């Protein structure tokens, strides 16, 4: 082994090892982030299912409709309040209930909030009082 060969080999090994280590750590971080997002997505799915099951089974027992509305429409505050009470959310998940601009129902929004306070994932679905049998005449 000559000195130049040893020097070139060491240099090559050092640079390739450091590059590989960088890529490995980046790949590990990406995998961890994907796993975390997957878990958060599963939580949102679970909470959405639980909310709809509660509305189907117990929604009619609570006063979720706007009082005095002839058109039978949901009260977003009442829906959010009932769901927060009976389908509590885990930490980091936020629920919002918003009126549809076309008066088709109420949008139920579930989101995962990052440590920075930004929404990482969002699921939203329209909820109509008719679809849950709340508007029986």
């Amino acid at each position: 082994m000559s000195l130049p060969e040893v020097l070139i080999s060491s240099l090559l090994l050092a640079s390739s090892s450091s590059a590989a280590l960088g890529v490995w750590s980046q790949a590990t971080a990406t995998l961890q982030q994907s796993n975390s997002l997957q878990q958060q997505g599963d939580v949102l799915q679970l909470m959405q299912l639980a909310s709809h099951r509660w509305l189907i089974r117990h929604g009619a027992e609570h006063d979720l409709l706007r009082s005095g509305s002839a058109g039978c429409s949901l009260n977003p505050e009442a829906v959010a309040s009932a769901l927060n009470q009976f389908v509590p959310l885990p930490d980091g998940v936020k629920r919002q209930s918003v009126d549809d601009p076309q008066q088709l129902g109420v949008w139920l929004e579930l989101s995962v909030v990052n440590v920075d306070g930004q929404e990482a994932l969002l699921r939203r679905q329209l909820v109509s009082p008719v679809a849950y049998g709340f508007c029986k005449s």
Partner: protein
Amino acid sequence: MASHFSHLLSIKKTKRFTGFALPLVVAVSAVLMLGSASIHTLSLHARLRFQVAFQRQQALDQLRSAAQAFTTMARGAQACLLLRPSVDWNFHKSSCSGANPNALLAGNVDDQPWRLLSWHPGPGSGNLQLALADGRRGTFRLKLAPDGRQILGVSDVQLQGRIGSQALS
């Protein structure tokens, strides 16, 4: 004589080991780089898989929202239309006075257009098939009141793949 022979032997050994380190290091480096590239590709695949699955869930949310919008629209004067399959709506306008079939044939939820593909009522329930603008189709089972004019519940969506988006335009 003996010392000359051992000198020759040492030169031969040195020559045999000369140039051995560099190919070995090149091979090790190649293995390291290929291995890390494979792991990187795997991690990107995992991320892509999650994104595709989440987008599918969001598309299902849109279909569910469209079905909920349909139930809201199928009230009042339009409730009479629930008694007949959607293909007959325009032929039996007289039997449902005041009903506007167009209100149930298409709509928008959250700026996303949807279209009714079919409505088939049956005893106690009906089959609703909707499509989104991107061609995704979904089927729902709607629970009906005994008079057939009132919706009492909506099943979860059954995704049925895509149709050509031109079909919706």
